[in-house]
């Protein structure tokens, strides 16, 4: 988890230092000239944010419409394909996002009370949660890529076969994890040192970036602990998953009949779920990858098209939110917010909650299909 305590706030300036920029009661420095007063500016800005959020809901509704139509028409494909998604990882990501939402709500509360230090710590914590989320997503995506589970033409998954590819993400994952953890600690320390040395904006921004990089590594570690690859299971003297993975190499290919192959796939997935003991008996017929005829109808490649676009667009929103939160941290460290003016904190918070809302629906719809 992100540790906001890695950064020591110097609290060099008293809370009221920024009120010195001119006559506060007549003209707040943040008040734009085209607004009557700060209240009007706040309401207008917030209304704009809500309009944007309404637009976001409609934007995502296109993706949800695609999901609904295809799930309605092909429920069995969704049930089969979702066995490739790890429910525990999805649940962890949900709770991580909920925690970040709590932190942001707490930050808005702090902003209303003019508590600059709490704004900073809650937002750094939120960034950490967002990065953990992205770390877990990194493992989910790369794991699927290495198995050959991609969208559309990138779907080369065969039950029981190991994909041979020139590029396997898992080869690079240990290096990425260690460098992410190391670099994250280093950058966080540099940020803390800068903040302590009396440049709060530079210090807090650098420290936040450090915490993000560190949390990305932590997310990768958490996800790896829960969902190791079959090879890693083997190295650790593993059991279960791999055995189920391997059975049934030998069925005759190309049944031709799509329905038949679908059934075989269902069976294999079922066997994988039940584990090795009953698996051997169950998987006599075997799925040999989508044939040209199968590609005509909705199948695994299409499900993962929907999966990758929905979660990918959501991940892009997470990244955009992280940039926005970084901006809020910079402004807060600069002492630009007080109990009268905290509109950016409020609006970025609203945006972050919406990203959370989208995930609240994505998680059960993609990970909990039955």
């Amino acid at each position, binding site marked *: 988890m992100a540790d906001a305590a890695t950064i020591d706030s110097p609290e060099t300036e008293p809370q009221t230092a920024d009120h010195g920029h001119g006559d506060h009661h007549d003209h707040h420095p943040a008040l734009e000239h085209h607004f009557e007063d700060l209240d009007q500016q706040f309401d207008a800005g917030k209304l704009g944010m809500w309009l944007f959020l309404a637009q976001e809901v409609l934007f995502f509704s296109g993706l949800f*419409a695609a999901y609904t*139509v295809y799930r309605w028409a092909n429920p069995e494909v969704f049930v089969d394909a979702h066995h490739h998604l790890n429910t525990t990882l999805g649940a962890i990501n949900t709770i991580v996002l909920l925690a970040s*939402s709590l932190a942001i*709500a707490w930050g808005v*509360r702090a902003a209303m009370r003019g508590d600059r230090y709490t704004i900073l710590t809650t937002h750094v914590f939120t960034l950490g949660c967002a990065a953990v989320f992205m770390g877990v997503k990194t493992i989910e995506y790369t794991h699927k890529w290495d198995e050959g589970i991609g969208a559309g033409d990138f779907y080369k998954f065969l039950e029981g076969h190991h994909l041979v590819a020139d590029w396997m993400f898992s080869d690079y994952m240990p290096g990425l994890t260690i460098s992410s953890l190391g670099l994250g600690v280093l950058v966080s320390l540099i940020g803390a040192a800068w903040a302590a040395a009396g440049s709060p904006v530079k210090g807090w921004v650098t420290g936040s970036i450090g915490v993000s990089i560190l949390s990305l590594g932590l997310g990768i570690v958490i996800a790896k602990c829960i969902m190791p690859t079959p090879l890693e299971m083997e190295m650790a003297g593993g059991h279960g998953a791999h055995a189920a993975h391997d059975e049934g190499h030998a069925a005759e290919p190309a049944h031709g009949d799509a329905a038949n192959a679908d059934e075989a796939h269902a069976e294999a997935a079922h066997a994988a779920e039940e584990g090795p003991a009953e698996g051997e008996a169950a998987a006599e017929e075997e799925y040999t990858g989508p044939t040209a005829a199968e590609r005509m109808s909705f199948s695994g490649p299409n499900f993962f098209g929907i999966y990758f676009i929905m979660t990918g667009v959501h991940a892009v929103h997470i990244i955009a939110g992280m940039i926005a939160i970084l901006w809020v941290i910079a402004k807060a460290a600069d002492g630009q917010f007080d109990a009268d003016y905290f509109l950016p904190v409020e609006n970025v918070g609203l945006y972050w909650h919406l990203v*959370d809302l989208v995930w609240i629906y994505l998680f059960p719809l993609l990970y*909990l299909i039955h």
Partner: protein
Amino acid sequence: MSHDAHTHHISSPALLWATFFALVALTILTVAVASYVPLDNFPVQVFLPMVFDTPMNLSWLDMPITLTIATMKALLVAVIFMHLQHDKLFNAVLLIGAVLFMVLFIGMVVLDSQQYEPEVLDYQYDKQTALNP
């Protein structure tokens, strides 16, 4: 710098924590229902022994349960975390309006796709027979 005319409502820490724990509890509930409750072979006879004596296939309840829990979570986030309960009504109207239009949109698309499903199936059948004569 007190604004007597205008004060923002500040959420209490207890409310924020309670909301968070309710959200986590609902997440765990939805995972538990999906993982451990055998909806396709639900033992109704245990709960209503005087009415039923065999398990019942309740898998049609899966989506309603999932979506109800998700909507409860979404409402908690919108009303408490996004502060709609003390916000201007118009902001809530915007969100509700967007959701209504989303429902309308998805409903129309689903109706339309059902409408053309026979043609799609015919097309797929023709293509498949062309590929496997």
